[in-house]
C-alpha cells in the first residue's frame, strides 16, 4: 500500500478579536491507500478542522499536509481548487446537494466542473448512483429524496469523478439508525470491492464499529490510534 496522506505537526488556531482558539495542536498521521479510517472525537475536538485541512479547504497555522507526495497546505486558491476537483471527493454532514439539480445532475456535477462531456459524465454518474442503488431515483430532485437517499447521492457525486480519496465529514450524523447503517454498508462495499479510500470524521459508533482504523483526537491532539483491523 502506498501512502496517500502525510500530516506533520499540523496546527490550526482560530482568532476572533483577541481571543485565540487552538483547534489543532500538532497532528501527525499517515493515511495509506485503501484505508477505511475514522477520525473520531467529541464535538469541538478538531476532527472536522483536520478533515478541512486535509481537503485543502482551509490553510493551517503551521505544519505540513502532503497528498501523494505533493505538499498541499500552502496552496493558493486556484491550485487548491484544482486539487480538490481532480483528487479529492467530499461528503458533507448536511448532504449539500444542489437543490435545483436532479440526483443524476448532482452526481455528475464534479465531472461537469472537470469539463467532461455530457454523455460521459452522465454515464459515470449513473454508474456511481447504481453502485449505491440510487439509479432508479436519478431524475428526482433532492427535495424528493429521503435524507439517506440524499447522502447516497452525495457519496455518488464524490465517487463519480474517481478521486484518490473520499473525505466524509460526519456522513451519518443526520441519518436515522437504519439509514445510517445502510450508508455505511454502501461505503464499505465501495472500499472493499473498488478499493476506494475513505477518511471519516465521526463520533457515530455505528460507523466506528465498521472502519479499519480509528484515530481518536481530543482538544486538537491525537490521543489514541487503534490498530488497523479487518473490517
Amino acid at each position, binding site marked *: 500500500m502506498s501512502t496517500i496522506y502525510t500530516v506533520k505537526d499540523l496546527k490550526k488556531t482560530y482568532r476572533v478579536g483577541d481571543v485565540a482558539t487552538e483547534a489543532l495542536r500538532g497532528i501527525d498521521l499517515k493515511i495509506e491507500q485503501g484505508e477505511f479510517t475514522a477520525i473520531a472525537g467529541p464535538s469541538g475536538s478538531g476532527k472536522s478542522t483536520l478533515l478541512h485541512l486535509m481537503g485543502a*479547504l482551509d490553510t493551517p497555522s503551521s505544519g505540513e499536509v502532503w497528498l501523494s507526495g505533493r505538499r498541499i497546505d500552502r496552496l493558493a*486558491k486556484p491550485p487548491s*481548487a484544482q486539487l*480538490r476537483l481532480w483528487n479529492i471527493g*467530499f461528503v458533507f454532514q448536511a448532504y449539500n446537494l444542489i437543490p*435545483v*439539480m436532479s440526483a443524476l*445532475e448532482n452526481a455528475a456535477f464534479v465531472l*461537469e*466542473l472537470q469539463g467532461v462531456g455530457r454523455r460521459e459524465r452522465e454515464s459515470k454518474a449513473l454508474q456511481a448512483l447504481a453502485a449505491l442503488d440510487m439509479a432508479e431515483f436519478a431524475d428526482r430532485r433532492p427535495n424528493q429524496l429521503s435524507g439517506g437517499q440524499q447522502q447516497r447521492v452525495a457519496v455518488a457525486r464524490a465517487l463519480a469523478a474517481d478521486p484518490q480519496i473520499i473525505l466524509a465529514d460526519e456522513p451519518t450524523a443526520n441519518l436515522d439508525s437504519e439509514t445510517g447503517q445502510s450508508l455505511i454498508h454502501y461505503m464499505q462495499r465501495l472500499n472493499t470491492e473498488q478499493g476506494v479510500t475513505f477518511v471519516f470524521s465521526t463520533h457515530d459508533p455505528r460507523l466506528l464499529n465498521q472502519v479499519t482504523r480509528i484515530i481518536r483526537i481530543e482538544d486538537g491532539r491525537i490521543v489514541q490510534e487503534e490498530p488497523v483491523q479487518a473490517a
Partner: protein
Amino acid sequence: MLTLAWRNLWRQRRRSLVTAGAVGTVVTLSILYYSLGGASTNSMYQSLTEGTGQIQVHVTGYRDLREFGTLLIEGAESVRAMIEASADGAEVIGVLEVPSLLAGEDRSRGIVLSGQDWTPALLDRFIDQSLSAGRFLEEDEFEGIVLGEALANALEVGLGDEVFAYAPGTEGFGAAAYTVVGLLDLLDANYEGRAAFIPLGAAQELAAPGAVTRFELHYPELVRLDQDTKIATVRDELRASLNDYSVESWQELNPSLVRLLDAIGPMMAALNIIFFILAGLLVINTIYLSLMERIHEFGIIISLGANGRKVMSMITLESVLLCVTGAVVGTGAGLAGVAYLSRGFTFPGLEEYYASFGLNPVFYASITPKQVLFSIAFALATGILAALWPASMAARLEPVEAMRFTT
C-alpha cells in the same frame, strides 16, 4: 451550466420576472426612443433636402461675390447636361435668383425674385403645404407670378392684379409685368414678405438669358438620413467633372444643422446609457440577493473544486440570461411599436410647433438594424457589468466559511 443558471433564476420567479421585465422595458424604450429620434432626424433631413437639394452647384467663390453678373452660371443647359451625365438618378433643378424691385400700383419692395423649375413631386408638396389662394404657375407661363401673402399685402395687390419687376443692369429685358395668379402662406413670415416665384424661363428672360445662379440636385428616393450614403461620392465625381464650379453637399450648405444632427446620436446614446444603468442597478440587486441566499451553496461548489473563474462565470451567466430574456421580449415589443409608429404619427398639440420649424408634423418612426443591435448589446453589457461585483464577491468566498453561512 446554462440549465443550472436558468433553474436558479426560476427559484425566485417573481424577482427574476420583475428584473427581466425592467430590462425588457428599457430595451423597448430604447428601441422606441431610437425610432423616434430616427423619425425626427429623417423629418429634418427630408425638409432640409427638399428645400436645398442634396447637392448644389454654384460658381466658384459664390459666397463672397456680390455682383449679380458674377453669380451666373452661363450656358446653363450644357452645365445641366454635364451634371445629369455625372449624377445618375438625380432630378436637376435650375434656379435663377434675381435681385429686383417689385412694384404694385402704389407700393414697391426690393426682393429676390426666384425663377426655378420644379420636379413634379416637389411642386405637389409645395402646393399642398403653401398655396393659400389661386394656383401655381405652369412651366411656360411667362406672365404669371406667385407671391407670399405678406408680400402681396405689402404691395397692396391680390389675385389678378398686376405687379412690375425691375432688374436694372442685367442682361435680360430688365423689366417685366406679371399677373398675380397665386398666394403663398409660408411658415417663415419674413420669407413670406420677400417670396415671389416665376418660372425659370421668365426669370432668364428678365435678367440672364440662358443662365442660372445655381443648380440643385434632388434625389427623391432618399428620405432617410441613413440612405444618404452615395451623396459624397456623387459630389466628388461632380467636382472632378465641373472644375470651374463650386459643388457642395447639403452638409456643407447647412453646417449648423449638420452639427445638430450629429449631436442627436450621442445624445440618444447617453440617455440610453442612463436607462441601462438604472436597469443594471436592479439586475445587481437581484443577482446580489440571489448570491446572498446561496452563499452556502457556493461554498459547496467551491469545495467540490470550482475555481474563482468558474464561480464568476456561473453568476455572470445567470445575469446575462436574465438580461437576454428581458432583451428578447423587449426587442419584440419595441419592434412591434416601431412597426405601428412607422405608419405615421403626430405629437398631438405640437403640429403647429413643428410646422413653424419647417418640419413635417407627421413623423414616421424608423430604426436601423445597427440601433436594434446597439440596444441588445447594451442589455448584454448590462448583464455582464451588473454581475461583476457579486460574481467577484462569490469568487473570493472561503469554502469553509461559506458552508457555515446560513441565511
